């Protein structure tokens, strides 16, 4: 592993450092997952090779992996962005629904619009739908102190019920047995590029572009400075004249916007209508993805790819080796656990804690 390299220089270490815990967390989760597999009488090697084959075994499977990655990137960015502002957005799922239904509505309600207007309009609608749904908990936090974890969880349920009502009522495709909206207009669909089996829609370059924009926004702009200051030390933020309320609302709105895009790209690129069950789960996986990426926007691209591969490969794995695809959810849950309880990984692999931790005990006012 990286940390055993003998010629460690400070520079190499500085680059490797952030990757150590996430990589070890994934590694450990795979090992512990194997124990589960063995306990249920499956061969772990068969299972994991089935997973790899399912994720990368052919052009079509690679395409599926990448297509799965796209909403994860947006969802992961949503959670990571809020984290940087000191907010734990559990509501990505609800914001994703609101984005998806908004995009779908604009997608099917207009007819005859040219592509150059219709598609961007639908994307914008999806982004704003999510932003609106994220801004409300932000507003509640800023002006009433209601904790965003509680409100965003509740807003997930409200969103689920609301879109459920819309697709079985006012926005339901007439004559359909299942509750879903009509198909969106061709002019609103995200176009595909690439050929044949390796066909991908434009959500993927958009996702990567947005990840870089978010990186720039957080670390290079005055707003990012405010966001990080509020996230790290809200008292110092108000001392320095930053409006913590305004930053909180904006942070949640942008986080919601990103989650909304996660729903939008699938709706406009892949599903082409809105049907709640197709968008379910992404919002919660996003939390793991963001944590595994240590809330770094570019790290989110990598961890999203990992999750995209796992979800793409798990069906194949089930078919090839008979291992239930739920085992992948177990592995994902283990990753979440090991990343969240980072200390566990540090103890297991005897990693040194971050510098100066022991020192904190002795400091404080008037200590000495």
């Amino acid at each position: 592993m990286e940390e055993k390299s003998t010629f460690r220089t400070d520079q190499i270490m500085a680059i490797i450092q952030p990757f150590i815990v996430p990589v070890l967390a994934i590694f450990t989760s795979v090992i512990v997952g194997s124990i589960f597999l063995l306990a249920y009488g499956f061969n772990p090697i068969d299972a994991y090779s089935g997973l790899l084959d399912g994720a990368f075994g052919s052009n079509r499977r690679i395409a599926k992996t990448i297509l799965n990655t796209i909403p994860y990137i947006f969802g992961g960015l949503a959670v990571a962005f809020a984290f940087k502002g000191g907010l734990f957005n559990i509501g990505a799922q609800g914001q994703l629904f609101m984005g998806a239904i908004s995009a779908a509505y604009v997608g099917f309600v207009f007819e005859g619009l040219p592509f150059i207007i219709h598609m961007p309009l639908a994307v914008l609608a999806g982004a704003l739908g999510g932003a609106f749904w994220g801004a409300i908990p932000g507003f509640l936090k800023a002006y009433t102190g209601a904790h965003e974890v509680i409100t965003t969880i509740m807003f997930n349920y409200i969103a689920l019920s609301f879109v459920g009502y819309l697709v079985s009522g006012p926005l339901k495709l007439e004559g359909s047995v299942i509750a879903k909206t009509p198909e969106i207009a061709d002019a609103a669909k995200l176009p595909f590029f690439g050929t044949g089996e390796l066909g991908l829609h434009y959500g993927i370059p958009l996702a990567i572009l947005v990840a870089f924009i978010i990186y720039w926004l957080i670390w290079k702009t005055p707003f990012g400075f405010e966001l990080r200051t509020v996230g790290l030390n809200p008292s110092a933020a108000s001392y320095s004249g930053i409006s913590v309320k305004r930053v909180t609302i904006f942070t949640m709105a942008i986080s919601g916007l990103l989650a909304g895009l996660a729903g939008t790209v699938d709706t406009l690129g892949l599903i082409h209508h809105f049907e709640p069950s197709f968008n379910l789960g992404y919002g919660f996986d996003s939390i793991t993805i963001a944590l595994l990426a240590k809330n770094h926007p570019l790290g989110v691209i990598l961890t999203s790819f990992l999750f995209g591969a796992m979800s793409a490969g798990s069906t194949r794995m089930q078919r090839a080796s008979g291992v239930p695809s739920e085992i992948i959810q177990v592995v994902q849950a283990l990753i979440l656990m090991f990343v969240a309880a980072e200390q566990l990984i540090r103890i297991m692999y005897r990693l040194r804690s971050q510098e100066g931790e022991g020192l904190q005990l002795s400091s404080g006012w008037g200590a000495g």
Partner: protein
Amino acid sequence: MSNQPVVLEARNITKQFPGVLANDKVNLKLHKGEILALLGENGAGKSTLMNILYGLYRPNEGQVFVRGEQVEYANPRDAIAKGIGMVHQHFQLVPVFTVAENVILGSEVERISGVLDMKKAINDVRELSEYHGLPIDPTAIVEELPVGLQQRLEIIKALYRKAEILFLDEPTAVLTPQEVKELFEVMRGLVAQGKSIIFISHKLKEVLTICDRIAVMRAGKTVGEAMPAESTPQTLASLMVGRDVILQVAKDTAKPGEVVLQVNGLKSKDDRGQYALNGLDFQVKEGEIVGIAGVQGNGQTELVEVLTGLRRSSNGSVTVGGVDITNKSARFITKQKVSHIPEDRHRYGMVKSYSIADNLVLNSYYMPQFRKGLSLDSQAINKQAVDLIKEYDIRTPSAETSGGTLSGGNQQKMVVAREIGGRQVELLIASQPTRGVDVGSIEFIHSQIVSERDKGVAVLLVSAELDEIMALSDRIVVMYEGEIVDIVDAGQATREDLGVMMTGSK
């Protein structure tokens, strides 16, 4: 005193924290019936040593002896069993419990039925407090007691656990001069009964008044011992810092000009909804330092918060240079050329994980000179940092070093640099500007504050250290329970007068 037996001894104690040698072969002896001062700057290793002697840390090397017998503590419980008691600087009390409940906490007396025997507890506490001459009402609720009595309660708690050796960690920091006198009497009474005390402090005058012997620590080592009779504040300070220090602040008489800060009938509530400021009227003119004296918790914190836009006032008005800043935002007030050195730099004054460069633009990052298009101009931010680091003597490997890794003194110099070096100032509000700061940095910060005054800046200085107020101020405002007791000329005020006023009487 030294003919008395040694009750506590530390031999070659070494304690290593990651990156810091907190105690380096430290030796210390405490005799029976002695008050030993442990003197040293912040970060000299005093607290580490006490925590080792009290069983909170284990030393990497060295031994501890109690009454000649070597001990190895697993935790403070073992130390308590050996008759060691500690009064922490920050009291370890349950505010909503009574005095008696706090005393017995952790060693509750039970009746045979297993029910708590409160009657016995109250009686025990009453007897104990009378025996030691520490009167206190066992049934009083702790949060309603003044700080001096809360501290007394901490001492009683230790005595209840049969402490023979007491550690008092900066016990005078929160007391009025009168309460300090009472504490000293209590300490003398305790040693007369054969108890032994280690008094941890960085206040030279107090140490000279109360202690039988003085041990000085610097940079993790015991660097010397002194007897009060043969020492002066000057010699102790030199021993503590390792070089000669100037204890007096050199300054000329003030030449006050126009009024800059005008406060009229100011009222504000604290976090619990009580009036913390009850109608304040005062002004600060350009070129003068006005000190706010008072025991901590008499409204000083709230006053500074109201003046800097961090708390709303309910009545009255505040103007700076004729501009009304009452209940305006912190950003608006900063733009009126008001600088603020906050009392708690870790909470308000800095973001620990930010680089020094980022900390230095904490309240100016949005200004045009630090922007390039939509982005922050990191080159300009770094350039300013390099200049300020040099000008304000911030000891750091680089401008990218995170602020949290600096020593207290250098962190404070960073805050001072940002508040007076990075921009134009009309009013400087300095709250506890040298709290938790080493002597060398105190000298530097004091001279900076005086030189700002000489440039014509109006300075409002809030400090819990009466010596600091007296050394720097041109006029002194004494606060008590949210009101101004009196405003006096610094030249005419004596320590004693101020001490009396700080208790609310003129």
